[in-house]
């Protein structure tokens, strides 16, 4: 099954991964691919580059900035394939070490079909 591994940034002094972190992330990504856990991954722009759209009414409303202002925010994620939470947690701990940040693991709900 699939898990979302969100990378949480909580240090106001930096946002982007430094070269050492980038290199460690590359090594980790290669391993995910080699072992068949890789689905997708990416880094995100800072929260102030976000736009929130609400089109539940007649017209879409746009607002500048993230939907929630917080000292901790999402800076990137992995989507991994793992047979169970134990495997996902093991991979996520290595991911946390590689990118040098906190991560959160959440299961995807099964495909409804």
């Amino acid at each position, binding site marked *: *099954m699939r898990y979302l591994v969100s990378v949480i940034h909580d240090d106001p002094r930096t946002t982007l991964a430094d070269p050492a972190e980038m290199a460690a992330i590359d090594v980790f990504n290669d391993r995910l691919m080699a072992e068949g856990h890789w689905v997708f991954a990416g880094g995100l722009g800072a929260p102030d580059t976000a736009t929130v759209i609400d089109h539940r009414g007649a017209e879409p409303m746009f607002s500048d900035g993230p939907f929630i202002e917080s000292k901790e925010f999402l800076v990137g994620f992995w989507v991994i394939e793992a047979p*169970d*939470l134990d495997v996902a*947690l093991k991979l996520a701990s290595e991911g946390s070490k590689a990118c040098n940040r906190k991560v959160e*693991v*959440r*299961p995807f*709900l099964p495909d409804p079909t």
Partner: protein
Amino acid sequence: MTDVERAITRAHHEEWARVVAVLATRFGDLDVAEEATADAFATAVARWPVDGIPPNAGGWLTTTAMRKAIDRLRRERKREEKQEAAQMYYFDEQRAPADDGDIEDERLRLIFTCCHPALSMESRVALTLRMVGGLTVPEIARAFLAQETAMAQRITRAKSKIRVANIPFRVPEADELPPRVSSVLAVLYLVFNEGYLATGSGTDPIRHDLTAESIRIARLLHALMPDDGEVTGLLALMLLSEARRAARVSPGGELVPLDEQDRALWDATLIAEGHRLVRGRLTAGIAPGRYQILAAINAVHTSARNPDDTEWWQVVALYDQLVALDSSPIVALNRAIAIGEVEGAGVALALIDGLQRQLSDYHAYHATRAELLRRLGRVDESRGAYDRAIALAGNVAEARHLGRRRDQLP
């Protein structure tokens, strides 16, 4: 109690965890396993007085629970056609139980799943008491002075996380076993301690239901993992603490400290069993973990016929070992108490003063200071420390004991 009631109580103690575990393995769902097991016991209560006690109670309960689970899933299947395909997999009665090539006990998988580190400590405790211990939700809520609805929600949430996040129903592999066993032992020790020194004014000072339940699960774990030193250590520690139960509260409802307990009231059978377990670990020749050291300390205490016979130097040596493993200030406090018995109250007080910042809200810190100051003749300071300890004590019997000690100061 009639024979049938006794048989049902015994079956509940001996078979509940196994039935839940077998069904959880079979159906891959704790919810189904729990409800079907409860249904099977309710059926036993209705049928056994009429039909008689079945010769193989465990087999009868497992078969009945299995049928109940299948009925339940069939009913759900009619409601939710979408899940039909997935559930058909479980309806095949010929399907062999999940088998990883080994024949480990299903109950062990159940214990490790309920104590999974991805669950909060409160959830692990509640889930373990429900699934492994067979306690009802109201019983668990009472044990932890929580609202029944809140406790039911906590258990439901934990079961849902296990299902949705796919926490596996298995015994961890060797390389991840030590931290996972620690997690299980922490759950059992927490339940035991709540029974050993219960908090809250509305409860008995010692909750025998909780100490007995945690000992029962620890015995099961020890039977399943006889070579694990810390499992043995925790069981021995619990037995040696439980052995003193009858002597720990006076008829007037006061907690009785170790040196004032009537040792004739100690349970010799439990002490012998605890000592045997501790000796077994000593001969294993493997460096002991914290539960084994705590058990050994309790073995020293329960070996002394009189308080004066206590080999305090041994206790100090064991606390020295424990401090090396566990740098918590509470361990340091207990070590200081032992050192006080060997080197005098002044030495102990000097050690304890160094813990003031970390333990200023811990009742036992102030109670210990009060006793040491009393021995040193510093009456006014001692009284102040008793006052502080009484204000912080969560256990009614302990507060009563401290109140008497304070009032007996010159």
